[in-house]
């Protein structure tokens, strides 16, 4: 279980407990966190779950697949700390993680 803080672009915060092994995209969808759509169901294939990882946490979120990197390269507002929330899975090591949302996803 990890306590995850999702911060919308407008600053609204949502604190959610996400069970181990569940993706941060599912964690948002399942708990009604707006701003993450998850259109492809978690296949790193739509980039509607784009988030920015709090820089201190980046190393703990693991590495990206080529597919994830390719999708992020085409996303609006790509930054060094961009990730797809569906490719990060909750675990005790991520307890307390803060993710922010970009202005738009499509």
């Amino acid at each position, binding site marked *: 279980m990890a306590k995850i803080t999702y911060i919308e672009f407008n600053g609204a915060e949502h604190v959610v407990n996400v069970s181990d092994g569940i993706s941060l995209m599912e964690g948002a969808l399942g708990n009604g966190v707006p701003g993450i759509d998850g*259109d492809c*169901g978690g296949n*790193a294939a*739509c980039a509607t779950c784009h988030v920015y990882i709090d820089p201190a946490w980046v190393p703990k979120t693991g590495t990206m697949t080529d597919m994830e990197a390719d999708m992020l390269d*085409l996303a*609006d507002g790509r930054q060094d700390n961009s990730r797809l929330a569906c490719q990060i899975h909750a675990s005790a090591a991520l307890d307390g993680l803060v993710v922010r949302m970009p202005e738009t996803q*499509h």
Partner: protein
Amino acid sequence: MATQPNLTADKAMKHTVPREDFQMVWPLPPRHRPNLKDYSAASLAAYLATAPLDEVDIADPMYWETDTHWTYFKRLRDESPIHFTGLNANRHRGYWSVTRWADVMAVDTNHQVFSSDAHLGGITLFDMDQDFIMPMFIAMDQPKHDVQRRAVNPIVSGQNLADFETLIRARTQEVLDGLPRGEVFDWVDRVSIELTSRMLATLFDFPQEHRRKLTYWSDIATADPEVPGNLQKDERQGVLMGMLQEFMGLWNERVNLAEPKGDLISMLAHNPATRYMPPMEFMGNLVLLIVGGNDTTRNSITGGLKFLNDNPAEYQKLRENPALIESLVSEIIRYQTPLAHMRRTALEDTILGGQHIRKGDKVVMWYVSGNRDERAIENPDAFIIDRPRARQHMSFGFGIHRCVGNRLAELQLKILWEEIMKRFDNIEVVAEPERVPSAFVKGYKSLMVRIPA
């Protein structure tokens, strides 16, 4: 047919005929069709229910004009999810059909193996005309695809969409307020085409009074030269060259402006990645942006009204709760699947769903089937406007080519349905629609409706 005698009937053949071994003849040899007493929807549906899977070429437009393809795709999903069609290979060289959600996803997300390149045939089941190749970024691979896509992406992202919203709403109101009451009229012409052509003219900053030219070019770009009444190949090329000329005029007016305007032509003209495109490539990208934004949204606008009429309980749900418009829009786009397929070409030998795909094979991702795959979507044949997770459909594709305009399309439909529900308690469909005979653009030529007086 004389030059390639054995291609039609050879059922053992399980790979696309390589392009170097294929002699393209024009006009194409006649299609092999089943021997039926007539080709009505009822006869075709009965035929597809039991026909041997190998004896059907589902790309035949008659199955699309009659809306009878569904049974065949269900059978493929259940019995032969990665299925090779050799029938009529003397026309299309043979192709693999991918019909399950998970397999379509696997192909769409593997752009290293499955190419979109126009020079290999491009992104539709029928190869792009090799003596009239129009390069466009939907039919390119990395890295060129990525830089060109980035050049136009800003037109449909965040702030721009917010700016469009007021304009789209005002126009939608105007178009709806102009509709007759108590009189039968064609929804496709009066609403679907009217709204999408105005939008398109805005995206290009094209003179509004000539907006129906955009519709005309879009129709010509996708029209099958074989269908009686459509333009012949060379006539079609002539029309597209004329289109290029008009757009070159706009390009020249805009390319040297110190302060670039925000339209698509200016974006292409001012971005270093696209500024020096050869003319055919400019034409290709124009066709992409015109067709991409036009037929698809148009047919979703038409389809939505038809589905609500076919499902009165859903229409009633909407009347009682207009907040359902958001999921309604996604459900309309899933249910319509405005582009029935996208095609890829294998760059290397690979295994897909247990089948050996050979380098050079055509692989067709049938979104229209994936969207009805009971393995991925519950009760997929039902139109349910408050479906949980309605956004999870494949009509916009997935992976690096996923539709750039998806949010704009959704915004147009959302505003349309908001404004419809404010005005009209009911819009009745009074006759079956006339459908487009195409296995690619899945849509309607007309839909006759009446708004009660």
